[in-house]
Structure formats: structure tokens, C-alpha cells
């Protein structure tokens, strides 16, 4: 119940907002893509810090014997983040490819400028 104790989550949320701002505001398409990546890592950091337990170990259990769950961190967020990282790399590859094609066509990375070029072309 405290902002100072939850500093990890706070940083994650700030990263999310920075990324989001870049994704929405910046005119440069490359910057938008980087913003997307930062936004996603912010979310993943938030998720992974939810699974962290103080003084607990990596969830690789010994091959034999009883296992006390409290000795290990929560494996669920790790699995979800793993999925998320792969999703975000595929999305950024696709967006980068779009970016290359658009630059070849319009010689700019600004979406508004491209729009203008397109209008001109139509006329």
C-alpha cells in the first residue's frame, strides 16, 4: 500500500506511459516502434515484479524430495512474459517491414507527410 515500496511497479508503469506517449505522439515511425517495444517491456516488468517473492529462488525444483512452494518465485508471470516477448518481437518485425516499404515509396517516415504525398499522387 505504498508507492515507495512498490517502486518496481511504479517504474514499470512510468515506462508504459513513456512508451505509450512515444507510440501516440511521435511523428517518426521508427520512434513509434521503439515506443511500442518500451511500452511492452514496461508491462512485462510489471508482470514479472508481481511474481517476485523476497528471498525466493528461481523455480527450478530439485529432481527428488519434497518441494516447499514458498522457496520459489511464482512461475506463471515468467511464462506469460515469455509469450509476450515473442509476440512483441513479431509485431515489431511486421511494423518495421511496413516502415521500409513506406519509406521506399514516399521517402519519409512521417505518417502525416505520407498522407499528404498520397493525396497529391491521387490528384
Amino acid at each position: 500500500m505504498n508507492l515507495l515500496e512498490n517502486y518496481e511497479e511504479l517504474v514499470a508503469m512510468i515506462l508504459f506511459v513513456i512508451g505509450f506517449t512515444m507510440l501516440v505522439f511521435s511523428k517518426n515511425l521508427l520512434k513509434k516502434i521503439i515506443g511500442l517495444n518500451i511500452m511492452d517491456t514496461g508491462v512485462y516488468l510489471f508482470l514479472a515484479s508481481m511474481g517476485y517473492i523476497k528471498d525466493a529462488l528461481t523455480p527450478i525444483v530439485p529432481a527428488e524430495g519434497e518441494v516447499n512452494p514458498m522457496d520459489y518465485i511464482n512461475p506463471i508471470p515468467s511464462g506469460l512474459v515469455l509469450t509476450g516477448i515473442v509476440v512483441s518481437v513479431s509485431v515489431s518485425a511486421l511494423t518495421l517491414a511496413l516502415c521500409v516499404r513506406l519509406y521506399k515509396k514516399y521517402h519519409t517516415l512521417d505518417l502525416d507527410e505520407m498522407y499528404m504525398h498520397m493525396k497529391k499522387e491521387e490528384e
Partner: protein
Amino acid sequence: MMDFLMNFPFITIVLSLFSAVVAFAFKGSRARFVTYFLLLAGAVMSCFVLAYNLSSETGYFVYRMGHYDAPIGNEISAGLLEPFFVLIFEVVMLLSVLGGKRRIFSDIPEEKQKLFYVMINLCHAALAALCYTNDIFTAYVFVEICTIASCSLLMASDKGKSLIAATRYMIFSLIGSGFLLIGIILIYSITGHLLFTNLYEAITLLWRDGSYNFPLTVAIGLIVSGLCVKSGLFPFHFWMPDTYGTATPAASAILSGVISKGYIFLLFKIIFRVIGFDVFLATGVQNILFVFGILGMVVGSVSAIRTKNIKFMIAFSSAAQIGYIYMGLGLGTRTALVASLFQIISHSLTKSMLFISAGGLCDAAGGKQDFASLRSCAHKNKVAGAVFLAGALSMVGVPIFAGFIPKLLFAASAFEGGAKMFFVLIALAVSTMLNVMYFMRTALTVYYPLGAENGAQAKTRACASFAVCTIVFIALNIAVGLNSQPISSLLEKGIELFMNVR
């Protein structure tokens, strides 16, 4: 033996994923037939699942994906609504792909047509998974597949315009995905569950307890707004005209008729099965949806009047129609919810029909989309003109067509809505008026009597698959319009299941 039918939802999903790989392995146009076959098979399987659920006692079953039960493993579930909507989506996709076949050949470079069909398979898989899933993170993964695949449908046309539209669509979709993801994770962090059933229990308890009400409200708001951005509710509808206007007709029909509806269905499922409708009403998010829905209805229609491009007009009309759906959700009464679901069905059927027929009209006008060059082109392509007229009548809400029923239900539900009644009725009246205006204008334009100067032009022959598909579209539309009673009672039962059976 009957129990074997319970495997069908999972078979639909995995088979369509598998068929995407198979279509990728094939050379040339054989990928097309894989897609047709899969959509047909999917539709048949959905029929069986629906029949099974209608005949069974509970009308609902949960299927384990793996060897472990609910909180540990993953599962999918099917009630009455899920197979019904999957069936509608499959039929619309099949008809759009068949009807837009000729334009797919002419719009998309030959070597990319195979990949276009691969993407349709993936869209199909993702939509089926979105409808059937019972796990919130699985829903996110398949939302991403749906996003990438639908963006690829757009950019397959390989023109500068469609690439820009695809980029815009992608950016809006990614904003939506970001919101959805962080909402899901907030919910996970305060409940510790990912499966719908357990989430519902945990959230109901938490809400009664009251300790996490603020994060819960924020999470619900983020999930709802993420899916709203993706489906194009009013303040986020900027991407719609470009996206739907520049794609090949089959792609725009699928994007507007199926994919945005898939997101809306997921939203319904999350609201009823995860959040619980009582908690959702208590957060007050539905009032925001109501306001934006009504604004969307009016603003979308006004924009549709102002535009000069037929496809942009249909796209803006889409924005208006999606406003209806959210308005129903915002009203929150039982009749309004049925009306919203009915609106999803009728809009899905009608809008894809309009896009396909607009493609035919534009072909007849020499590939141009503005009204001036579309003048009297319905005489050249009679089938497309007739279908467009039927679609317009359905959109406007003429009885016997499918579009009439949701408007009737909305008007009926307005009287249960208390203070919101006034706004609903006014918005319905204004929006219908505007609808009539722009569809009348289009119909008058395309049926403008042939003058001396353009009367001599040759008639373009409509290809057979186009004619058959569009006729099936009209037949379906009228069938839904005439048999509204069984469908709306099915929807009502489905909502009952959504709310009460877990």
C-alpha cells in the same frame, strides 16, 4: 457418441491453424480451396455444437485443453452464443471470400494471393479461439494473431494507400492491445487467476470486500477501452475509412463484418463471464460506453453524409452502427443486450454484403470510388446494384430485412432504460434519418437514369460466384429479418447462460 461433439470447438481452432500451415505449403491457387473447405467445415462443426447445446440440459459445456481442471490447466467453453457467432462469422467470411474472388485476383499480386488465404485461415482460427476461449491470456494471444493477420489482409493489396492505411490500423490496434494487456495483468495481479470461472469468483469477492476497488475499476476500464479502440468506437474510429476504403472488397468485408465484431463479442464475453454484469454496472463504465455509442451514431452518420467516396461512406456508416452496439451495452437492460447482439449479427451480414456489392459497383464504374463516377453504374452491373439496394434497405431498417429488428428492439428497450430513454429515442431517430439520407443519395446516384452520353457503354458481366454469393447474402438477410423470433429467443437464452451458468 454425442459427447464426441464436444471436441468440435477445439477441432475448429486447431484445424484452422493447421490448415494455415497446409495452405502455406501448397503452391499456387490450391490454398484457396483449403480455405473454402475449412470455412465450410468450420460452419458445419459450429452447427453441430449449437445443436448439441440446444438439445442438452445445461446448454453449456467446458472442454479441458490438457489434462488438468480449471484453475490449473487451460480450457475452452461453449454455450449457445459462442457456436452461433462462430457460425455467423464463418458464413460471412466464406461468402465474402467467394464474392470478392474476382477482385482478389485483380487487386492482389499473384504471388501474394496464397499468403492472403493463409491469413484468412489464421483470422478464422483466431476468431474461433476468441469466441470459445475461457482463459483471458489466451484471448490476448489470439487477439494479437487476429491483429497481425487482419493487418496483412489489408496490406496484401500492395498499394501505397493500403500500406498507409495498414500502418494506421496497426498503430491503433497496438494501442488497443497495450491497454488490453495491461488491464489483463492488473486483474491477474489482484486476483491471481487467469481462467474466466475463477476470475469471476475472485472479482465478485473482491468487489464485495472493497479493498481493491480502484485497481479493479482501472483494469476494467483499460480492458474495455482496449477492445473499444480495436473495434472502432467513436473517438477511435479515425482508422476506419482509410482501412475499409483501400482494401480489396473481400478484405474490407471481413475486417468490418467479422473482425471488429469478434473483438466486440470478446468484450461481451469478458464483461459477462469475467467481470460479472453486476460489477460492471457498479463501476459505471457502461455510462461512458453509452455516451460514446450515441455520439458515434450521430458523428459517424454525419461523416458518412459528408464524404464523396462510396467505400468511405460505408465505413463511416460502420462506425455509426458500432455505436448502436455500444449504446445497447450502455443501456444495460436485458432487451437492450439482446438488441446489441442482434445488431452484431445483422450488421455483420449487411455490411459485408454492402462492401462486396460496392466492389462490384466500383468495377462497373471503371475502378473509381467517388460518387460522380459511380453515377448510373447500377445499370451496368444489375446484380451489384440490386444487392446494394437490399443492403441499404437493411441498413436503414426497413421491415423484412435484418436491420429492422435491432432498431425495433432498441426502441423497445429504451422504455426500460429510465433516464436514458430520451437520449436513445432521439439518437435512434436522428441516426435513422441520416441513414436514410446517405443511402438514398447513393441509391439515387447509382440508379441515375442512363443519359445519352453514357448510355452506350457496355455492360460488365457479373461473375457467377459473385452473383451466387450476393444472392445468398440477400436470402440470409431476409431470413434473419423474417425469423427474428427464434433468433432473439436464442440470444436471450444465451445471455441467461452467460450471466448465470458457470
